[in-house]
């Protein structure tokens, strides 16, 4: 697609590197097998402290630049101490992060200059599920609503297409909308 603008579009995404990675991994798919990791420690009550540092990819162990820490807890309304966001809110954060990163990448690839991308997320949840009050109510979200407001140098339909494409290629969107196999093992120490 020809971009006739004088200035080069820069959304801060190195799309060239991504395209090269895509080509390299097509030829060597073993390199594409990544494993994401996190570890957690109970900190009393409903407070959990989680750490993210290492992951596996491109055939070897990798590490973030630094270790990240995330606290999760329940709010005072739940008779808890509110030391961190609730785990379900962190899931929304994951979705926002994944979709927004996707929007930036697709915009870069399509030569669309972004100026601002804001999202608000909302997820209704009927507590009768997790509280075991009503067996017909699921534990999780009844639905998720994401509202994007985007300022970019493109017509509204092109911006809508960015967001649609981002969902199509989003890991967290897939995790939330499709079934995922989860194994939980326990050992006594």
């Amino acid at each position, binding site marked *: 697609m020809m971009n006739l603008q004088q200035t080069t579009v820069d959304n801060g995404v190195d799309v060239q590197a991504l395209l090269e990675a895509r080509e390299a991994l097509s030829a060597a798919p073993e390199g594409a097998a990544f494993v994401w990791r996190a570890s957690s420690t109970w900190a009393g009550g409903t407070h959990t402290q989680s750490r993210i540092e290492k992951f596996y990819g491109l055939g070897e162990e990798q590490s973030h630049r630094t270790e990240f820490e995330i606290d999760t807890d329940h709010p005072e309304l739940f008779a808890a101490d509110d030391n961190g966001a609730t785990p379900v809110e962190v899931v929304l954060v994951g979705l926002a992060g994944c979709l927004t990163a996707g929007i930036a990448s697709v915009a870069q690839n399509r030569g669309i200059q972004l100026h601002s991308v804001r999202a608000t997320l909302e997820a209704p949840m009927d507590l009768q599920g997790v509280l075991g009050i009503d067996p017909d109510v699921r534990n999780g979200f009844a639905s998720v609503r994401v509202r994007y407001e985007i300022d970019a140098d493109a017509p509204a339909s092109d911006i809508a297409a960015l967001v*649609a*494409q981002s969902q199509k290629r989003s890991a967290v*969107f897939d995790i939330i*909308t*499709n*079934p995922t196999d989860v194994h939980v093992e326990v050992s006594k120490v």
Partner: protein
Amino acid sequence: MSTDRTPWAAGSVDVIVIGAGQSGLAMSYFLTARGIEHVVLERGAIANSWRRERWDSLRLLTPNWQSCLPDYAYAGERPDDFMTMPEIVAFISGYASFARAPVHTGVEVQSVTSVFGGYRVGTNHGSWFTRAVVLASGAFNRPHVPALSQNLPPGLHQITAFDYRNPDSLPPGGALVVGGSATGLQLAAEIHASGRPVTMATGEHLRMPRTYRGFDIQHWMQVTGLLDQRYDEFDDLDRLRKLPSPQLIGSEQRSTLDLNALADRGVRLCGRLAGLRDGHLQFSGSLRNVCRLADLKLNRLLDGIDRWIEINGGLGATAPYRLLPTRIVDPPCLAIDLRAGGISTVVWATGYRPDYSWLQVPVFDRKRQVRHDGGVVEAPGMYILGLPFMRRRKSSFIHGAEDDARELSQHLAAHLDAQSRARAFKFPKSA
């Protein structure tokens, strides 16, 4: 009938064309025109797949005026209508006679192996030796069914689009049609009309109106040059070649059959069939986005047509308009209890795979697809025809056979010439 020789003798021939459908017959026409000796081997009767592997009510989704093969056009009285299966078979069989194609019916190719100078083609009636092979056996030989199918309860009736013939053979009760392609939508409409409530599960799909601004959509696909777009114009060829068929149906009323039309008739829409857990079928929550993707893509298509008309003038075209967005019921259906959900039948309209189990030449990629460059296969003197977007967007349609066959026959002829010259050079007249 064509020059159907029985009994016949296997032997040597310059070119073997495997498959007497539209692609194989088009190639035969050009080989004959070039004076290249060849045979067309067909495991069944001419137009076998059209005869045996389609459902009763199927019509082409391209209008009759578009049906043409080299030097042969539709000559009937309903150019804007859509051929039924018997009419398609008659059209293709008629072509085989017209082209005097050297077809051997009832010959099933069981192996193709490389030998010096060409290939050995093993069949149920002996072996042929040949210098070049044209794979024209079609892209839709075997139905593709997700692994999930094996985990469904045994009492549930399952059938693929490949085996489906009509709704009468289905048990009473609701049906789940899996797959939002042209096939899926056509079967969903037909089964629902038979009095069985239908649920349709769809992932990404291609939405198209039957007509736009007073003309069939295929008219615009053709005049704007979309159908002639070549494979080498695109970077993401793999994705294009895997696109589902557009949601079109061939009907006298020229009706548009999209998800909204199905919903209007009472068909329930779900997202992609994603899993089975505790006796519940699970459907993806991505339904809204796949419908949005399809709507956006449809609008881009119509935008392109409008732009073309602005520049070139569309004689008789009516005013531009847009279709309503695909309606999603809120909340969408995310799960169906197989024990209580009223589903008696699952119809798999989940696509097809070509069958090249007999091709024993190492020309496959790691996903078992034949590696080729616009129909020129990696092995010398081997060609392939009829796959989606093989060489042009229209490659897998009846009217797409001609241009592809013409160009590949030229490549093939050049290959045979070069091979002959190389041999002549190697074995000079004895001193």
